[in-house]
């Protein structure tokens, strides 16, 4: 089975967010980038699928040279080959998904695994976009996954429960935490990943559909009120919630 997994290179979760001088993007000075946490689950599921059905796992990322770091980690975890769709231009979800789906057409995998969300711009759009560009099915926010015949049987998280979804292959599957326990790269994997080449391809172009006007930091909340330092403050707190905030 030919399996494709998409990974993104994102600021780690503790990043202090500052706005760059262009007023529309993140100031990347001093920011530590990591493999998008949800993509760990996508890689793990791709590797498990290969272990079950045989084949190969190709990992792809669209971005600048810095994305190679994340591709190396994916190789170290066990992906067979890595492809960088090299582009420094800042694309929106539509444009990234378009380029990835064009690449997918040339590789023609039977299934694509991605993360449910990139923790940079939190778009959660890639799954439906790539699938629709390819004329495939998609299942988002997946916490359980199996292939039965020519269908995917998956469980996706919804408000207050789960949906059991049956989708015909080929399909794009977006991994949510809980799907599996991602493996750590082995020492052997890390050594091998250093030797494996990362193929560079020029991605297809596609105009953005989103125009960012400005990026800003949240307006700092007024310093909150410490109502008290022990149990005697409780009546005052409840009174404030009832009369001032009017939320209870």
């Amino acid at each position: 089975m030919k399996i494709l997994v998409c990974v993104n290179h994102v600021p780690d979760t503790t990043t202090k967010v500052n706005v760059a001088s262009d007023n529309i993007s993140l100031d990347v000075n001093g920011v530590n980038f990591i493999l998008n946490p949800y993509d760990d689950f996508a890689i793990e599921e791709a590797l498990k699928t290969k272990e079950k059905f045989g084949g190969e796992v190709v990992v792809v990322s669209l971005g600048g040279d810095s994305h190679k770091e994340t591709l190396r980690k994916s190789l170290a975890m066990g992906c067979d080959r890595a492809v960088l769709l090299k582009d420094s231009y800042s694309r929106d979800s539509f444009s990234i998904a378009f380029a990835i789906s064009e690449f997918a057409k040339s590789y023609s995998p039977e299934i694509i695994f991605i993360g449910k969300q990139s923790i940079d711009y939190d778009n959660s759009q890639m799954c439906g976009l790539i699938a629709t560009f390819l004329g495939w099915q998609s299942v988002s926010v997946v916490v359980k996954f199996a292939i039965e015949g020519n269908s995917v049987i998956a469980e996706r998280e919804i408000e207050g429960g789960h949906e059991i979804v049956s989708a015909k292959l080929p399909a794009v599957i977006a991994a949510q935490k809980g799907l599996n326990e991602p493996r750590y790269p082995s020492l052997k994997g890390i050594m091998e990943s250093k030797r494996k080449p990362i193929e560079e391809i020029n991605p297809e172009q596609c105009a953005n559909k989103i125009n960012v006007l400005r990026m800003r930091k949240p307006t700092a909340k007024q310093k909150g009120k410490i109502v008290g330092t022990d149990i005697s403050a409780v009546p005052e707190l409840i009174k404030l919630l009832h009369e001032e905030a009017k939320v209870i």
Partner: protein
Amino acid sequence: MKILVFAEQRDNCYKKTAFEVSQAASKIAAKLNSEVIALTIGENISSIAPQLGNYGIKKVIVVNEPRLKNYSTSAFTSIVNQIVEKENVSVIFLPASSMGKDLAPCLSAKLNAGVASDCTQLKVEDGKIIATRPVFSGKGFLDLEITSEKKIFTLRPNVFTISQTTTELATVEEFKPQLEEKNFSTIVTEVKQSSSKKDVTEADIIVTGGRGLKSPENFAMIEKLADTLGAAVGASRAVVDAGWRPHDEQVGQTGKTVSPSLYIAVAVSGAVQHMAGMSTSKYIVAINKDKDAPIFSIADYGIIGDAFEIVPAMIEEINKLK
């Protein structure tokens, strides 16, 4: 320019987001002098549709289709697409719920439309819709416009507050979509309710417990406070990882993003990844014995003290209001 609202229902009941999105879209439509219609898809749902009139919708298109009792990504995408063509819709508003977030990118690719996901604010400037959306887990906000001819916005639940402005009812128009076998390539075969309890993403009040509660048994007091307030119980990742609470209660970066009117964090330190999921709550209350806990930096009201004394006292005090 016509605006379409995707009004989500489950089990023949509108989700609160259906009203939120209807009202937010109606306000935008008024500013743009354009028409706004809604679409509801389900098995037998014509009777619930008129109430959307209360939130500014004049006409609701309903699709009654036995095969669509449950959600289907492929069939819903096709139906919305057919409505967009038939009605010549140029802007679509959906809730940023699990359904809306699943549907929006499929429509985006089909309609060549840009999507602004999970918007927390909308306004009209120079005849254009400007959306604000949180990025980097709420540590930043983008103001953006969609430049494609067709435009899609998903709205974060609980952020766009509703007020029933009229008692008017919407007219209901039934639509029979063209559906082929292939439109059912993805189907939901079963919906498993985790329990009858309230989901954190839909709750108006959330009481969240953290590791400072020391054991799963001590969550009894959190549940009691939640019951007293008609609230949902939330959890930090530390307590979910410890197996004290189920993952569907987790709030934060790797859990759920919530925006209730009142968020009470009990014995939660307020790690950035936790705050990522709740910083847009309207009012935040922190109960923590450490005066330097980061949660106090975003709390509107705080008590520095022992949760084991304060929570029971809160329950007692709230009961006095009743």
